[in-house]
């Protein structure tokens, strides 16, 4: 077994770039799954859930663009959306929600997961004294905005779930 480093800090540009790439993939998974939910449950979706999904897909696309701008600044490519979409499609049969309650739960998981990811990432960056080749303040400001929007997303989905 190889020695591991027990650390919860982001130590280098490469590691930061990789984590931001993972953030992009998570946003792409949300977008792609949301599109599949539409196709799967179109006839059963009511206006409230439809609006929620549309807003979530739009927000994910926006987050993805902001992360892509950061990744570009680190000299690393993004992961093409088409690639992630086809991976989601390939496994959707095994992981798809059965009805719109499941769709809401899936959406809640999306928002909670994204929130946790950005919160951990912010903490790991704040705990690191590494010098990154992109502006640290701008990086943290972007990630904090995205994290707060995810927290808002958790609240919105929870409210819709509680009303039903």
């Amino acid at each position, binding site marked *: *077994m*190889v*020695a*591991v*480093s*027990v*650390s*919860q800090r*982001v*130590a280098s540009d490469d*590691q930061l*770039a*990789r*984590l931001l*790439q*993972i953030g992009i*993939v*998570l946003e792409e*998974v949300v977008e792609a*799954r949301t599109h599949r939910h539409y196709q799967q449950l179109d006839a059963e979706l009511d206006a409230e859930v439809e609006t929620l999904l549309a807003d979530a897909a739009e927000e994910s696309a926006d987050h993805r663009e902001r992360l892509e701008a950061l990744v*570009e600044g680190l*000299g*690393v*490519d993004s*992961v093409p959306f088409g*690639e*992630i979409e086809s*991976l*989601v499609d*390939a*496994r959707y049969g095994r*992981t798809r929600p059965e009805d719109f309650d499941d769709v809401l739960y899936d959406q809640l*998981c*999306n928002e*909670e*997961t994204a929130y*946790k*990811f950005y919160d*951990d*990432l912010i903490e*790991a960056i704040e705990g690191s004294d590494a010098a990154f080749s992109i502006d640290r303040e701008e990086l943290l400001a972007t990630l904090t905005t995205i994290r707060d929007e995810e927290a808002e997303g958790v609240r919105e989905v929870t409210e819709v779930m509680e009303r039903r």
Partner: protein
Amino acid sequence: MNTADQYLKTIYVVQDSEDGPASTGSIADALGVSPASANEMIGKLEARGLAEHEKYKGVKLTDDGIVRARDALQTYCIIERFLANVLAVEDFQAEARELEAVIDDTVAERLDTIIDRQPECPDCFDPESDACACLEVAAAPVEPEQQ
């Protein structure tokens, strides 16, 4: 995955390969920490009922410890598989070791929706290669291009 989970995963793999209690030295070596640090964390795991330490013999995970260790190993396998098959990272083991502390289990679960993990995971984990024995790596992995 937090530090405690990294320890649990390591103890699980070491006790499996040593076919008995894991020695503090082996755990410290595997984690790249001092024996004193390893002892301190083992004490915490013991206090939480996740491990049992027997003087001169080593550490053994309790049933609860084994459940958590297997979850942690599964999360590690997801991260490795994601890096190797989705991001085409050549040295996916090294990167997984760097990233595991920053990737939460819930995040790994989402990544799991786009990878093709085998049902026997994490039993297929091979400590020698530090990777899942079922993992197929692309013949010519492409690293993200540097601009």
